[in-house]
């Protein structure tokens, strides 16, 4: 791990100099000092003993978030943050809100970040990012500023600063890692927690069936600022995440990306099925993957094979109380299905036939494929 406040190794600085443009292209050129062999086509299996250092040096992608941090196994947020920083490239500065991501990446004196990174407080990531952007503008620099926060830091406590940043038109990409509760403090409900999900502050019991309120429709609220680009994405679809990050990076103005990121500990599923769970949220219609330009719907990820919400819900402990033979549980399940159906209808999520960008096609991992452009 690189040390906090320390300088990164020469190779990283060299790759930094390549700038954002280089990082935006899919098959990146190797660092200048790397041997020509490193440019071998991705996917080629290397025979013989594995030299991890060599493998990493051949890794064609820029890594903003290095491995070795302290996230839980199967953490959706860690994966999402890696995808975002990979796609954004080295010419960035990050402002990170307080939360799991900040905690597990920077236990002093270590840091997993290979890009300039600052954490100030829980509710001010958007404002700190705005200040960084104003400073860079004053200095005539074009480094992109990215603000990051969880759903608590975005939907709730940091919402005012976020709204202000968007309204003022700062050239900042705000990324929300949405794991639907305050996971860092031990799974308390946030305004992003879905209806009827159990958290430690929305438990199920004789009088309650988990959270009593709806998940806040944050992306619509953000889009109502009429910013150039706002989108949702899911860690189940890495290429879609990258594509959206690159799109946002290219826009000179405020952009917003909400990434649905399962939390195995908080949702109650095994760390090995994070991607499957995230995909089910999309395929049921509970988490619509959409894009909005200047406040208007500009694109959706169509669902190829629609799944009933119970497939998603029964895989998670936080919805366990809905699977008992009881009138209230049945009612809640019907309610959640109705919410999913509503999403599907409102956003027109049902696809008509096979589409490489739909919920079955978009998660196909094809390195170097067209989707990487």
């Amino acid at each position, binding site marked *: 791990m690189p040390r906090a406040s320390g300088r990164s190794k020469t190779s990283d600085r060299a790759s930094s100099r390549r700038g954002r443009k280089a990082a935006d292209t899919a098959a990146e050129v190797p660092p200048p000092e790397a041997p020509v062999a490193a440019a071998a086509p991705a996917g080629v299996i290397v025979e013989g003993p594995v030299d991890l250092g060599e493998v990493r040096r051949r890794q064609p992608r820029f890594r903003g978030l290095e491995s070795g941090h302290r996230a839980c196994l199967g953490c959706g947020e860690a994966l999402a943050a890696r995808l975002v920083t990979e796609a954004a490239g080295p010419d960035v500065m990050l402002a990170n809100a307080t939360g799991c991501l900040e905690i597990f990446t920077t236990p*002093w004196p270590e840091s997993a970040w290979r890009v300039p990174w600052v954490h100030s407080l829980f509710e001010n990531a958007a404002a700190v990012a705005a200040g960084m952007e104003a400073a860079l503008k004053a200095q005539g620099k074009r480094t992109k500023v990215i603000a990051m926060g969880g759903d608590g830091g975005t939907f709730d406590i940091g919402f005012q600063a976020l709204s202000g940043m968007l309204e003022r038109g700062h050239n900042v990409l705000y990324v929300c890692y949405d794991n639907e509760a305050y996971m860092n403090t031990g799974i308390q409900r946030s305004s992003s927690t879905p209806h009827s999900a159990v958290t430690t502050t929305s438990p199920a019991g004789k009088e309650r069936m988990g959270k009593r309120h709806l998940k806040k429709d944050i992306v619509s609220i953000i889009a109502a600022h009429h910013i150039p680009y706002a989108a949702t994405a899911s860690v189940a679809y890495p290429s879609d995440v990258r594509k959206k990050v690159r799109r946002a990076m290219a826009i000179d103005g405020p952009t917003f990306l909400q990434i649905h990121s399962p939390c195995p500990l908080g949702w109650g599923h095994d760390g090995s099925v994070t991607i499957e769970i995230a995909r089910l949220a999309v395929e049921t219609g509970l988490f619509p993957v959409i894009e909005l330009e200047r406040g208007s719907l500009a694109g959706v990820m169509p669902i190829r094979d629609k799944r009933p919400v119970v497939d998603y819900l029964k895989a998670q402990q936080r919805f366990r109380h809905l699977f008992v033979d009881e009138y209230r549980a049945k009612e809640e399940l019907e309610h959640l299905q109705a919410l999913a159906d509503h999403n599907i209808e409102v956003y027109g999520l049902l696809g008509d036939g096979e589409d490489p960008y739909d919920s079955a096609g978009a998660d196909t991992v094809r390195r170097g494929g067209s989707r990487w452009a």
Partner: protein
Amino acid sequence: MPKALEGSQAIARAVGLCRPQVVAAYPITPQTHIVENISKLVADGKLDCEFVSVESEFSAASVALGAALAGSRAYTATASQGLILMSEVLFNIAGTRVPMVMTCANRALSAPLSIWNDQQDSMAVRDAGWIQIYCADNQDAVDTTIQAFRIAERCELPVMVCVDGFTLTHTLEPIEIPTQQQVDEFLPPYRFARTLNPLSPISLGTLVSPDFFPEARHSLHQALLRSQEEIVAAEDDWQAATGRRSGGLLEVVGPEDADVAILTIGSAFGTLVEAVESYPDVRPVKLIKLRVFRPFPSEALKAACLGLADLVVLERAFSPGMGGIVGSEVRAVLSDMSQPPRVHGYAVGLGGRDIPMDILPRILESIETPSEVPFRIFDVELSRLPEEDR
């Protein structure tokens, strides 16, 4: 050539001469004229800076923090509720050792709601880790603002320049505005060693375990203590450039042999100076202007109090349930003198209550009869209160 300027206008010009690259502010009485004037400088093309009109003081401080980290000289101004709203950020800025300057147009804190001056706001955040300098008049405010940027940047500490709301911010005075050349020679361009830079990435604001936390806090404490040297050096250099002084850490005026002194903080000093002239028949009295409150100038204060029998502390805030804030600290600092003076504490001018000239004879008379009460609020009319609250 001095010009007749409103305090806020003069402060805005001083800020402009320091060439801030990012100014973030949210309006609050009585700070508004300062940021209005800065906005006008920007609009007129006289100041090349990013003026960020934020949606709250919390974001004002946060934007300034982000700007300073990204390599730009940053400034903000606020007062009262605004200062308290940004208090979480204030602690964070100081803990991260970020240089920036803020003007606090001192105002009372609600409730009850008051837009008028006292110093409850800045006193409430005295533990934030900011350097706090209190100005006695508007010339002082101009000179201190310019010095503040140099102090902040040399010490990697934020500086709060406290000016009494309305009393200074809205008062027209003849003020000498330095030339751009004078300021440029005094204040080099902003340079911050830990500036964020994609070519050599660093992580700032990390999680610190108990293994390192006390060390980090110790280094902040030491930085504050050491900043006294830079505060004095800034004043000396500024005096060499302009011939003016604001009073170093603290300033003492009056007859050397007086055995009673009155300590003030902020603009009350001027009132007392005039009062001494208006009441020539009172006993000889020294006046102590406490200019720097953080870091607390303990040694300078002890030296100023040598030979005193009585020290009256007049302050514009207090800690309910305890008493004077400045008074308590003064008492604590003087306690290891071999013959410390008796300290008499008064809160004066709360919520904009006028500090009358006859405060001088009245206070001097009151200390003749030793009181059991170490702290009182001056001028309270008990008859206005219900019996049980008196």
